[in-house]
């Protein structure tokens, strides 16, 4: 077995189990990560399989197919991260806004009470 194979597989295992252990995610995301992990391991352990799939879909070279799939996966994850970031931004904005408004309403009420009493 070439040295690169255990190195890559070791990296995939660390990344995959690290994701499952430390990242809170939905079942859908965990399934997608598992699928990606298995595909990656398969491509490393049985390299000629990518060539066979490439021949089947008409890409030409297995390397090109891997590159295209990697590019597609990168775009997919970039959009996913962007969308999650946006959701977090909305949530933070709503909280910060509500705190600011609550403080101002309380100040206005205190001022009014002070004016009434004086």
């Amino acid at each position, binding site marked *: 077995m070439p040295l690169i194979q255990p190195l890559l597989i070791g990296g995939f295992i660390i990344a995959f189990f690290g994701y499952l252990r430390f990242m809170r995610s939905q079942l859908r995301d965990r399934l997608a990560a598992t699928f990606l992990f298995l595909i990656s391991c398969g491509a490393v352990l049985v390299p000629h399989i990518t060539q066979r799939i490439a021949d089947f879909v008409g890409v030409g070279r297995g390397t090109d197919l891997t590159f295209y799939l990697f590019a597609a996966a990168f775009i997919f994850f970039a959009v996913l991260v*962007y969308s999650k970031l946006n959701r977090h*931004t909305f949530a933070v904005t709503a909280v910060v*806004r509500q705190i*600011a408004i609550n403080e*101002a309403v309380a100040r206005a009420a205190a001022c009014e009470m002070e004016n009434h009493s004086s």
Partner: protein
Amino acid sequence: MSKQNSWVVIPAFNDNGPLTKVIREIASLGYSVVVVDDGSQVPVITSVTTPGVHVLRHCVNLGQGAAIQTGFSFALSMGAAYLVTFDADGQHSANEIEALLEPLQSGVAEIALGTRFAEGGRALNISSLRLLVLRLATIVSRWTTGLCITDTHNGFRALTAKASRQIQITQNRMAHASQILDQISRFSIPYVEVPVTIRYTDYSRANGQKLSNGFNILWESFMERIQ
């Protein structure tokens, strides 16, 4: 008509310029004022003694769009009938608020957009580059929204309470100005343009919107459209 139900919303961030003077001018005309300190390192206003002036503070910096929406939400909760957005850097003239509110109070429109480029409007001390960028941005805004406008990204505008409930600013940063135009178009909100004077000063140029932000605004507007 009482001016107290017209609320002027001033977003501010790390201001050490004419904000106090701006607030005093507006309050002296009888309008209610809400200053939204958008998480400045040092609070822009430490204490308020002027009646009718309210200061809100974001505990973190979110952006001008978020500050305006916070000001709108607060003013509406306090019973505002009209809302005006006004810059903190002294570019706008408090005396022109009345002209912006007039078409709303007479029922002609729900939103009055300040324009520096229509007849009667002025952009004092504007640089040629900024003028060019604004002209191009206006063409893009007309094309993307279908609105017949002569100016874009002019922060001096007025809305009725009804319109400001329809308009929901979710673009926290500078793209909110494009988002407002998008929503005017989408909800078919009646609008008019009102000529105003924008006075560029060294302070406003140093602290105001950078021209390079144009790319960020285009990007944010594009991402909002595809979401």
